[in-house]
């Protein structure tokens, strides 16, 4: 009998978690770690956005295979913005591979499909980028950006229960702007409902694999990350209290799991990206505009404003697309000009400096370096990762290159984490999509 429990905690950094384990904010997690588990630092997907990172984990492949590059994308051969959702995922998720319900190919599927002896039933709860929910072997409750609870649940009986208990898909982050205190309160309330719903399915449903995500942490960090280590901050205690509650919930799930399935089950915890304090937001499109690489007209929606003479534009957070003749109706950059243009943009980006002359851009990747698979045509030509503190943005409406917002935290690529059985070790820092293999491996042994 194979059983796995996976807990996802959105946006929890390795560094913060280590500190809280050391400082006894999370004594239960410390105890679990002493029972045969190891905490590792991991890399998020590139870009380090929840929809991309969780999809990379869910499918165990890189965006070149699963086709998700961000919360927003442009429709092929056009400038019209759309929001990719679960229907746009081109590779099977691990629960589809284990449940033997998938119809899509992937390298992970090729590797394991013959080794899975029988279908396994999963409960997948609040995992980002699984909306709308789709039929699978088990229960699926979609996470961010789910809009309609009915479309966020499979099967229908799941909706009936969640509806009856006044389930909340997400906190209303819009509220943070008006009343931060009230927003903090709603984070705890939302977490309570989440815990109640998770426990309901955990205890009451038959499953072979249980995967639940806590997403309140990401919201907490976006608006309160400055409170994480600052005793003077008015939200310091609330911030810590959230982690104390989280620690208790992890203990509850872990103990229930061990009690039922002894130590033979597979247990892991992971985050999809890290977090760091924000110094400034950086509006890359404004920078490209000032460097003469981007021209926008006043009419049109979002990227419909891109003019002929544009050479490159940016989508959140820093996905730079070359305005090529082959890919866009008004594209002007010819294939043979691309290599030089890419070099020029890279050079220009490296000149981007903060107030004290410090570097803003940490790493620049060309798409061939990071994306592999059948769906790289839609991939950005360049992706940049910033130095911690500089939050890169895709907004088209900014008048300055640097700015401030209400956010106190920003995503980081290099500081995600996972907790895995100690017999698993890595020769180099793993990225989030490499972790999925261990789950399927467990079921194929």
């Amino acid at each position: 009998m194979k059983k796995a429990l996976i807990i996802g905690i959105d946006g929890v950094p390795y560094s913060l978690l280590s500190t809280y384990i050391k400082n006894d904010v999370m004594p239960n997690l410390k105890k679990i770690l002493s029972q045969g588990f190891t905490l590792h630092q991991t890399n998020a997907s590139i870009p380090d956005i929840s929809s991309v990172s969780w999809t990379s984990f869910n499918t165990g492949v890189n965006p070149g295979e699963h086709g998700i590059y961000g919360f927003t994308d442009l429709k092929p051969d056009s400038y019209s913005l759309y929001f990719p959702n679960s229907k746009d995922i081109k590779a099977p998720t691990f629960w589809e591979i284990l449940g033997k319900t998938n119809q899509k190919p992937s390298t992970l599927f090729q590797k394991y499909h013959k080794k899975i002896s029988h279908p396994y039933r999963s409960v997948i709860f609040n995992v980002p980028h699984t909306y709308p929910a789709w039929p699978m072997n088990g229960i699926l409750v979609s996470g961010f950006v789910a809009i309609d609870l009915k479309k966020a649940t499979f099967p229908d009986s799941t909706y009936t229960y969640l509806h009856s208990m006044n389930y909340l898909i997400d906190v209303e982050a819009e509220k943070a702007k008006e009343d931060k205190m009230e927003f903090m309160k709603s984070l705890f309330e939302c977490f309570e409902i989440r815990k109640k719903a998770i426990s309901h399915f955990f205890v009451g449903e038959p499953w072979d694999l249980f995967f639940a995500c806590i997403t309140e942490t990401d919201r907490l960090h976006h608006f309160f990350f400055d409170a994480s280590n600052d005793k003077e901050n008015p939200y310091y205690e609330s911030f810590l209290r959230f982690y104390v509650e989280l620690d208790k919930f992890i203990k509850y799930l872990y103990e229930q799991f061990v009690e039922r399935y002894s130590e033979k089950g597979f247990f892991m915890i992971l985050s999809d990206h890290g977090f760091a304090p924000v110094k400034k937001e950086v509006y890359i499109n404004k920078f490209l505009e000032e460097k003469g690489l981007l021209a926008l007209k006043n009419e049109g929606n979002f990227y419909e404003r891109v003019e002929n003479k544009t050479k490159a534009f940016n989508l959140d957070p820093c996905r730079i697309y070359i305005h090529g003749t082959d890919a866009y109706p008004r594209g002007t950059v010819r294939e043979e000009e691309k290599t030089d243009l890419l070099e020029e943009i890279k050079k220009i980006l490296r000149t981007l400096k903060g107030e004290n002359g410090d570097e803003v851009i940490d790493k620049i990747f060309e798409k061939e370096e990071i994306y592999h698979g059948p769906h790289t045509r839609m991939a950005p030509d360049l992706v940049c990762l910033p130095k911690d503190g500089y939050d890169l943005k895709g907004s088209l409406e900014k008048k300055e290159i640097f700015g401030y917002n209400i956010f106190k935290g920003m995503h980081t690529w290099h500081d995600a984490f996972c907790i895995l059985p100690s017999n698993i070790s890595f020769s180099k820092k793993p990225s989030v999509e490499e972790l999925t293999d261990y789950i399927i491996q467990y079921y194929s042994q």
Partner: protein
Amino acid sequence: MDHLTRLENKSIYIIREAYYQFKDIAMLWSVGKDSTTLLWLCRKAFFGHIPFPIIHIDTSYKFPEMYQFRDARAKEWNLNLLIGRNEEKLKEGMGPGQGSKLDCCNELKTNALKSVIKKYHLKAILLGIRRDEHGIRAKERYFSPRDSQFKWDYENQPAELWDQYQSTVEGEEHFRIHPILHFTEFDVWSYVQREGLPIVSLYFSKNGKRFRSIGCVPCCSPIDSNAQTIDEIVEEIRISKTSERSGRAQDKENIYTMQKLRALGYM
């Protein structure tokens, strides 16, 4: 009784019921075909003299034909017309070219309406929305309470069976009342046809194109159509399979997605 008369009777019943329940009531008129149909029904309900004000939320970006039509009907039908405009934001240059369409709608429509409701202490507004317009509207009730933030708790609504309408709830700020909720797009056009109701000329085909849904100039695009008369439009709608609002810029679910992403700093 024929189908359209049945629809009409139900609407008039709701309009009169609403007026009986709420003194501080007004009707929202976008000048489009649906709210013009509602306006016509209100006139019928009170024998030509509507006893409450008619609000037009003016974003300043409407088609010239719409302003002309509005003023002509207001005079002809002796309407107590109130114009709601977000002057402050208009002065600041808010418009579809400035910022996102979402912000533009929010400021020039939603916030303009909020201030009209506040200014005139309105307790109820009549709206010409229809159940078949959009997925989310399928959940609407005839009497729908809203709070001061315009929030609609669509999962907690009375059943409205057997023409029993609940017009009081605890803590509500105002009521939205939807007398033509049960009309389909086809019903509206058939009713316009039967009643000989005047309608903005934008709905009729010019050079092979006509508007199926009208609003602000930058956010509406015409559809391919040769329908130049009401009869031709009725026939076109009868056989059409595409969505009525396909010419509109934004779809509700996309708007929510955008709001959620923006609240976390994306876009």
